[in-house]
């Protein structure tokens, strides 16, 4: 039997605000001791009250606008209750009834539009690490602001599920609301999947796969789930509504919790936080601060950068931002360098965090343009611009220091050519050339390059050689 899969995705995005959603504590716990970024509000001392971080509201507006969503002028918080050591208050503060971000859509590169049902603000939970007979609790992540983005069930293939997650990631990175580090859980995906017969009017029973943290695992889990459910339906069995876990190593999902065992979260309006009332002016002002989005770059650069390279570079918002800053005439050559040299470099991840100043990149592109640098030398200097030890010295200085500037001065080149042609070991080649053996010019150019310690512009050298030998 042929089935149509229907997929809905909930995505949690950790916001990169300076402080937490409900306290003034550092929100960036990267590389910090466990339980060092925690205030009495976060670890739920008695009598502590949440204080809302206004920055998170601004981030939510930007995130919402990146997905073409309406921003709700009125929204409020609710409590979602459950007992677990990762939740010190015994409840999560979320927006169950009236979220801040309304409906919108995300357009995939293929042109498919996935509608957004809503997105809401909430606090993250802490992290537990389990050992054989004990577990450790780290509350650094407690009440890191999250937005949870809920899609409509508009996705019908694992590929689209993958592309949707990736596009969401791009949008959130371009909106500058998250560090976007998937490995460290900055974005996490819950995928629910159901199958229905092709002409069925209703959706089938769905299973939800929680906590996926890569686009690939979203795609693979969806593929696996479609196969699993198809087999069940083909055999006349029923799909159970349940939460399933994904094991990346075995490539399988396994049942965790069925509907009967589902938790009752006992939602309740959060009485410690007044509702959020946003003026139209405030929403408009924040919306206007949305940086350029992938589509804006596609439109802007489609004449200068080939589509393949553009799609690669779009995964790196910092590079796109840089390309937008540098002189227009240099965009083409630098985008090639970004794609073919920088991204191939093993330290590229580190380099991407801190790009060189635009003026250095412009300088490099111009030296290359003026043939002051060979293409090999250009690549070498280009990488040095990112090197923490060389950074800031400028392309010209680095090229000089490394002795990579090409000799373009025709007079100087003529002198070198003359020296080489006076050498006894080049006499035979000169004779052969005059006798019509074109190929030997290569040997002669090589000799000149050697004499110049590689600094001569080979094209110019060849030209001078020809002129001198045919004089």
């Amino acid at each position, binding site marked *: 039997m042929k089935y149509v899969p229907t997929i809905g995705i909930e995505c949690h995005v950790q916001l990169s605000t300076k402080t937490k959603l409900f306290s003034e504590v550092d929100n960036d716990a990267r590389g910090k001791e466990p339980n060092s970024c925690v205030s009495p509000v976060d670890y739920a*001392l008695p*009598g502590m009250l949440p204080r809302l971080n206004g920055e998170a509201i601004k981030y939510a507006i930007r995130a919402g606008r990146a997905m073409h969503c309406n921003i709700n002028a009125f929204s409020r918080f609710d409590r979602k*209750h459950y007992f677990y050591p990762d939740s010190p208050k015994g*409840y999560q503060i979320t927006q169950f009834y009236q979220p801040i971000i309304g409906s919108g859509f995300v357009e995939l590169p293929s042109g498919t539009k996935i509608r957004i049902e809503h997105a809401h603000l909430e606090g993250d939970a802490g992290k537990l690490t389990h050992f054989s007979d004990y577990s450790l609790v780290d509350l650094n992540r407690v009440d890191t602001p999250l937005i949870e983005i809920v899609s409509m069930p508009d996705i019908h293939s694992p590929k689209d599920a993958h592309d949707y997650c990736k596009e969401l990631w791009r949008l959130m990175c371009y909106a500058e609301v998250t560090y976007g580090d998937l490995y460290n859980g900055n974005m996490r995906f819950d995928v629910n999947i159901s199958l229905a017969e092709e002409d069925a009017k209703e959706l089938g029973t769905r299973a939800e796969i929680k906590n996926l943290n890569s686009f690939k695992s979203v795609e693979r889990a969806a593929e696996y789930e479609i196969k699993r459910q198809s087999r069940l339906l083909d055999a006349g069995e029923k799909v159970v509504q349940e939460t399933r876990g994904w094991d990346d190593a075995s490539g399988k999902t396994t049942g965790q919790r069925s509907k009967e065992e589902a938790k009752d979260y006992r939602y*309740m309006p959060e009485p*410690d936080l007044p509702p959020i009332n946003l003026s139209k002016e405030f929403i408009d002002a924040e919306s206007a601060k949305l940086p350029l989005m992938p589509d804006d770059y596609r439109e802007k650069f489609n004449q200068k950068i080939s589509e393949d390279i553009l799609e690669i570079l779009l995964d790196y918002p910092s590079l796109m931002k840089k390309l937008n800053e540098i002189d227009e005439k240099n965009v083409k050559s630098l985008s090639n360098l970004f794609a073919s040299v920088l991204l191939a470099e093993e330290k590229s991840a580190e380099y991407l965090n801190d790009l060189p100043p635009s003026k250095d990149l412009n300088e490099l592109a111009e030296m290359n343009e003026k043939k002051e640098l060979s293409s090999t030398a250009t690549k070498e200097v280009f990488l040095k611009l990112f090197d923490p030890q060389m950074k800031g010295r400028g392309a010209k200085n680095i090229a000089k220091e490394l002795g990579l500037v090409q000799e373009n001065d025709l007079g100087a080149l003529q002198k070198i050519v003359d020296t080489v042609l006076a050498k006894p070991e080049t006499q035979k080649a000169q004779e052969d050339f005059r006798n019509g053996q074109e190929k030997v010019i290569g040997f002669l150019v090589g000799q000149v390059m050697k004499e110049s310690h590689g600094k001569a512009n080979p094209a110019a050298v060849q030209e001078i050689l020809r002129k001198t030998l045919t004089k």
Partner: protein
Amino acid sequence: MKTANKTVSAERLVKDALEKAKFFADYHIFTYLNEEGALKKAREIDAKIKKGEKVGRLAGVPYVLKDNFLSPEGETTASAHILQGFNSPVTATAVKKLEDEGAIMIGRTNMDAFAHGSSTENSYFGPTSNACDKERVAGGSSGGSAVAVALDIVEFATGTDTGGSIRQPASFNGVYGFKPTFGTISRYGVVAMASSTDCIGFFTKTPEDMDLLMSIASGQDPKDLTTLPDYYNNAGEPAQVPLGHAVAPARRHGGRAASTSVVTCGDPQVNLRSARIGIIKDFDNESVDPEIRQALKKKCDELKKNGHEIVELSMPNLKYALAAYYIIVPAEIASNLSRYDGVRYGFRSENSKDLEALYANTRDEGFMPENKRRIMIGNFVLSSGFYDAYFLKAAKARTLIIEEYKKAFSKCDFILTPVSPNLAFKLGEKVNDPVSMYLEDVMSVPLNLAGIPGLTIPVGKSKEGLAIGLQLIGPRRSDKSLIEFAKELA
């Protein structure tokens, strides 16, 4: 308020208070006596006075703290087993404001655990006795604080009022007890009972002292987003409304001279010399103790004689208040008590073999039966499938009650009612009958649902010598004029 000065030292004031506290030990007022800490602070203040340095408006005034206010002095337990061993690293905003003015905490007072109760019998430390009759309850939940002021151990005490927990014990012991408009005093650092109805307030012997304390403790706090702008202290500034004729000679408010002709008032202009006083006829029935009804009648006659107008009000929707209260409040209680899990602070049950057991045992052993009852009710009314039928319906009833008060205050300036239907009852009398205990709150809880202020005014004694109090109620943000009016009545 008797403050320390060059002739009467803070040390003297504190020593006297501590001595009295010990003298009345068998009333079980205190969960902690802060002898060393209080004396140390007193000496610091005395040193300042000696050097002629500036001291606060409450310099050297001893006071007691209800056991649910966080401060590093003594364990903050809310008189609950589950918080035993909890030394707070933070200080409640209200406590900080009092101490910044030089007040000295001499002890923490007994209460119903987590403020769940109307008699202080639900304390892990056992009940507190009534100041008028040792065989009777102190009222609650702020029983210890009320008795400490009634017995003159201190001139003021802090309290919290979620459904009457300040006004009822004030009434049972014959002192002033004030529950301000919701959000007047920061709740930061006060163990939460029900967030949407919890109010911080005080017990005093006079309305003047109440006025001073309110001007010190009130105000917006960035640590509590539900606090209101600092309107209480603004006497004399533009936001106020003029009073008909002069309110007597200039009084001092918070150390500043207040204008003689204006008083802070949220709603209508109030003429404190000829105010319109509403009485609720729905409350005037056999379920109310005859001596209380008589006291109310007597007060009304007195008011009429003094040029005030008595307005009869029908407020039928108030009958929903108790039911709505005992849905909304347990829901918030269940939620607010979720954090007591034995993982991070306070009591933890031993010998639990897994996480589930750790939670279950800690909470089973750590909470009082009344705490558990409310947690169960709260979780029930919030559970999926019941939310609309209970919590949402109660929230709608709450709106009706707010509207009912708005309507009433279009006809009168203040409302005068009993605080509770009964005088202080016998220890043990109602402890096994939760519904009759809840009925004690029938006249106090509507204010908490509406967020409006109420002040218990002591009006005399019963034939048996029990204290009788009446409750003066004003519209939202009428706190200042309410207290001014109480001064008129005193």
